[in-house]
């Protein structure tokens, strides 16, 4: 399944929480990413066409998948692909995987504490 953030969600994604607006990271995660991942499909998220992405949006959308228990870093590595043809957007792809890895580490640390 291919999800284009610009076409299927918003070309101006904004903020982290619903209190920040209807096109925030949390809503993108819950309405778009989680259903696609739960369906067991290979999910391709296309970043092309957005006007810009904040790290807060990316962290809440993708890091939140791990923090909220919807997926693990290893499951996402096999099920999720983040793509762009815009060279200046490559940093967003790197950030997505960084936030997923960081969220996994957070979960690991919490488990160790517990």
């Amino acid at each position, binding site marked *: 399944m291919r999800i284009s953030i610009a076409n299927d969600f918003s070309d101006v994604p904004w*903020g*982290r*929480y619903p*209190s920040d607006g209807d096109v925030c990271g949390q809503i993108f995660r819950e309405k778009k990413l989680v259903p696609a991942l739960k369906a067991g499909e290979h999910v391709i998220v296309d970043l092309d066409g957005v006007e*810009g992405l*904040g*790290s807060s949006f990316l962290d809440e959308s993708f890091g939140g998948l791990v923090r909220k228990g919807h997926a693990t870093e290893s499951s996402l590595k096999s099920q999720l692909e983040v793509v762009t043809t815009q060279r200046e957007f490559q*940093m967003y792809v*790197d950030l997505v995987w*960084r936030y997923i890895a960081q969220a996994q580490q957070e979960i690991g640390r919490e488990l160790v504490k517990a």
Partner: protein
Amino acid sequence: MLTLLKALLPTVITLAVGTFWLNRFFVSRANLAALVERVCDALDALKDDCAEYWSVPYSDDRSSELTVLEAQIKGRMQQISALVDLIQSKRPELSDQVRVLLVDLHDACTGGEFESKQRQADRGRFMRVVRIIYKIAVELQRLKIWGGALVEFIDAQCHDLRAGRRGSERVI
């Protein structure tokens, strides 16, 4: 006359080819210097935007102003990323560390509670932005192949950046 021409021909050709390559070298160096200058300018502007944005918490009164700043910060990040891409395509020896630093910079500028109504002032985040910007400027200076003159040029361009940094540290 013909003999004289024959004797001079190799010299003329050597001079023409030499001038062509020398010209090419200096034009290419000047283009790269201009690109670096633009990156430094954009980094400087980004630093100022981040200082303004992260030094005060979100407030409804300033929401439209903050929205503009948020868009500006994201736009500048894209501009810097595109310019660094361009430099790297011309000078592959520019270390990949710069790409990592750009990701760090994007995280520092637009992470945490960026674009959130719950955002608080975050001086630590701003200091992180300044540190990363300085590191990127240093990485650009490491392009030794450009020669000492260019390194001095970059240094001069980035001088204001560093001076601004010290100023901002006092303000924040």
